[in-house]
């Protein structure tokens, strides 16, 4: 198992998981979002290649109302 921090909260997943698989498990697949891993943008086109490791920190954002 690996432990990830996603939007500041702890999550556990099986070893060898990629970004696309995590998004699917979080029911975020296909949503309009942007993702940062350890402070660096992961482009949407790389979600399937980007493997995740123990201790990685993800930030997943969307557009919300604001001025």
């Amino acid at each position: 198992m690996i432990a990830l921090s996603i939007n500041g909260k702890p999550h556990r997943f099986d070893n060898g998981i990629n970004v696309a698989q995590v998004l699917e498990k979080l029911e975020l697949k296909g949503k309009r979002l942007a993702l940062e891993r350890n402070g660096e943008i992961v482009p949407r086109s790389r979600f399937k290649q980007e493997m995740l490791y123990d201790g990685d920190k993800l930030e997943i954002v969307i557009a919300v109302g604001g001025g």
Partner: protein
Amino acid sequence: MDQLVISGKAYTSRLLVGTGKYKNFAETRAAIEASGAQIVTVAIRRTNIGQNPNEPNLLEVISPNRYTILPNTAGCYSAEDAIRTLRLARELLDGHDLVKLEVLGDPHTLFPNVVETLSAAEKLVKEGFKVMVYTSDDPIIARQLEEIGCIAVMPLASLIGSGMGILNPYNLQIIIENARVPVLVDAGVGTASDAAIAMELGCDGVLMNTAIAAAQNPVLMASAMKKAIEAGREAYLAGRMAKKLYSAAPSSPTTGMIAAGGKNQAA
């Protein structure tokens, strides 16, 4: 035709609106429609995880196909956070590089931190962002932001969400006179007359959120703001009459008056 040009694109509306503080997406949509705005700001925030997977998305309501989306850095207190937020926004919006930079200095007043703003602006311009920047009404800072390469300078009229209107028209006038990029008032407008005054001063546009969203009837206020912006712009272009304490020239002719006195006084 009188148009606002931002980053090479021409807009007929000079009113830019935010999408925060509305009751729901239906009200957001109706108010933005009534405002006639073509540039609409959004904030970037963490998505909910595990709750409401079918929750509608703001960008489905305010479509990037119809509106120019202006992602902001509201809530950021450092250059670093603002830059990270806008990189995420660019990814979220498929490489869209027009952004609104705002770096705040104090959660209580929401005063901008101009030191962090300058630092963030410099890095963002280097990364290819088209930066519309929220700042104080200090003409020197406004000039420095322009020199850095910001494509629009957006001084406050008064503090964010205060509705206090235009507190220092003289500073705004100095900023407008010296700027070679569009100057938009961002923050502080409370009602339609404030927006009209901003435009009469010669601002290229006004960005507002709370003045519409926090009105008793946001959709009606959005319509009022649309008219105020248009009226203020036309008044500016028309060129107002000079002010004087009194006038010896009444509006009606001074000749051709009937004879003094009535029939009772006739000899």
